[in-house]
């Protein structure tokens, strides 16, 4: 029982890493977990989209907001631009910390967070102006459910970004140690992609 046993005292850093990870390389454990979680989120939004398309398909007559209400496609377009831009700024932050540039990470994370909050504020303003509610027919129900749960996920993303920013300000990230940044950015991109789906479905496809 010698060769098959784990080493009790890893000599160097590489051995230590091999002992911790069982000698396996590849994607960090945290990223695997985040990707799996995102997979479950894809199915969650798949379910919500299914309710939308089902309502769309079974509706006889015109599909759209109930009488007295409207959709503000201009505002929604601006918000889409804001969220897509935030995906880019997030990625600039990730690239910065991969180079070890913690200062740029702080800057880009801060900008991303601000854009995320701007999106949420814009969405709330949009809600207040539309003239219909969640109880106003099946369009109202699916519209607010889909956009609302997306908004809740954006909010979750801003919480993650706040944590990343706080940790970045404490100098906890480096070129070699920044898996939290990668994981949160992955989630943020996912939220962005979902919004592109929501926007295209509700505003463009009609």
């Amino acid at each position, binding site marked *: *029982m010698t*060769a*098959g*046993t*784990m080493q009790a005292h890893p000599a160097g850093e590489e051995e230590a890493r091999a002992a911790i*990870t*069982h*000698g*396996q390389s590849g994607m960090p*454990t945290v990223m*695997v*977990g985040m990707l*799996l*979680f995102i*997979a*479950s*989120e894809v*199915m*969650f*939004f*798949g*379910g*919500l989209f*299914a*309710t939308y398309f*089902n*309502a769309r398909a*079974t*509706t006889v007559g015109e599909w759209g907001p109930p009488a007295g209400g409207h959709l503000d496609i201009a505002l929604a377009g601006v918000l889409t631009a804001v969220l897509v831009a935030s995906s880019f700024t997030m990625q600039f932050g990730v690239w910065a910390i991969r180079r070890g540039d913690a200062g740029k990470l702080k800057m880009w994370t801060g900008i991303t967070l601000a854009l995320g909050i701007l999106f949420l504020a814009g969405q709330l303003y949009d809600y207040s102006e539309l003239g219909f*509610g*969640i*109880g106003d*027919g*099946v*369009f109202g*129900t*699916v519209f607010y*459910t889909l956009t609302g*749960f997306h908004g809740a996920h954006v909010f979750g993303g801003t919480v993650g970004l706040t944590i990343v920013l706080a940790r970045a300000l404490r100098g906890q990230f480096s070129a070699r140690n920044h898996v939290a940044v990668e994981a949160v950015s992955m989630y943020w991109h996912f939220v962005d992609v979902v919004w592109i789906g929501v926007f295209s479905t509700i505003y463009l496809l009609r």
Partner: protein
Amino acid sequence: MATTTLEPRTAGYRRAWVLDWLTTVDHKKIGILYIVNSFLFFFAAGILALVVRSELAVPGMQFLDQDTYNQAFTMHGTIMLFLFIIPVLSGFGNYIVPLQLGAPDMAFPRINALSFWLLPLGGLLIFSGYLFGGAAAEGWTSYAPLSNRAEGVGTDLWIIGLALVGTASILGAVNFITTIFKMRAPGMTLFRMPIFVWTILVTATLILLATPVLTAGLIALFIDRNYGGSFFDPSVGGNPILWQHIFWFFGHPEVYIVILPGMGVVSEVLPVFSRKPLFGYKAFVFATIAIGLLSFSVWAHHMFTTGGALFLPFFSFMTALIGIPTGVKMFNWLGTLYRGKLVFSSAMLFALGFISMFLIGGISGVMLASPPIDFHVQDTYFVVAHLHYVFFGGSVFAVFAATYYWFPKMFGRKLNEPLGKIHFWIHFIGFNLAFFPMHELGLLGMPRRIADYADRPDWVILNFMSTVGAFMIAVSVIPFLINVIATFINGEPAGDDPWEGNTLEWATTSPPPPYNFDRLPPIHSERPLFFLTHGHGHAAERPDDLEEGAEEDAEHRKGVV
């Protein structure tokens, strides 16, 4: 053996016992918490089953009113599925998977603790409807428009509770898959993983992809009930059938979420007590994956009678197709038993019970896959019989097999065998007495989910038999509980490897130290411990010989040896 078993060298610092269990992130303790919590809910839901069967023993209303009856069978089904069978198998997975992989813990220990603690919270929320004017009463499937129009807060608590339990499942699934892909010991390739781990991997994938869809449906239902939404309300453009699609898109993978880990348990127990390797390891793995894939394409077989735009031949064909990988597994098990040196321990009896009872459930399942038959027996007791043969005859038998098999590892003491056999036989006979007559009742046209029924002699005798069987099942729990308590007080010490097992959990102490392994044996096959203790088919060969041969290793990879 002496080479693989060392006393734990450090005792660690000690905390108060209760605090230690409440705050633990050790996968073994969390696994035990899962199992204990699940059994508590099992007993609660079992009592509800007895309430239902008591009411149905003879025609007429004896104990309950209609609404209480509806609540009883709704809570029975919900709790049994979501708070007993799924979590108890997750509990065994929690305890066993890291050990079988040679890992020190799960990948995310704190998320693991969170997944557990959401369960009692969700379960109590579901039950708490009884405190607020009545629990949910729409059946565990909670069909719209019954559910979106039902009065009372019980259904809302049911929705919130299930959403929490579902979230717990999803987090658990993320943890299992990550653990399996990232935490395997050196040498533990995917095709050397124990079968139980494979079934947990496929199960976790199904949970990951199916449960969020249920969450979406639950949210839609909650919005309909509380915020004036109209997902399922046809008067303003909604569609009640949509609920059935969403529910069963989750609900059918859910059936395999419940049965696959049970199949994994049986595939661990049978080889050990047949003294043979599992017959057709890779066939079993691919059959498991095939069942997982097919499970997403069969949901509408629960909805044949809803009409509309359903394409019945497709769903019927896909459902029948699942019979093929399931049949492959039957031959895996029979091939393992064939000419084996069988040891009829309690665990083995429950595993054999699983195979025979699941076979009956599988056959009635293929019958139900045929729309002409399904149209006749939809919502009759035939369906109730079928689902109990797969859930109870399948999964619950596997849960008890797992309990007798792994109890010695968890607590260092073996459960009493004679008491275990008494448990098995009362359980087995009671089970068949309770549920076999339901096939006949269904064919005679008795609908499910009714509190009272016509005073027909043939229905009455079959119902009475079923009630007697239900109480026999309840009685069978008594020797089990006595057994557990007696074993804690004065059980036979188990040693590290009481069954001469194949897999790594038997290579450490019973119970294992917090970090699981002081050292790991070399892993050259899916039965590392067997090769460690028995050599390479030659008792003379010692483990050191094994470590020399890289060629042997390559042969194993190709599956030659």
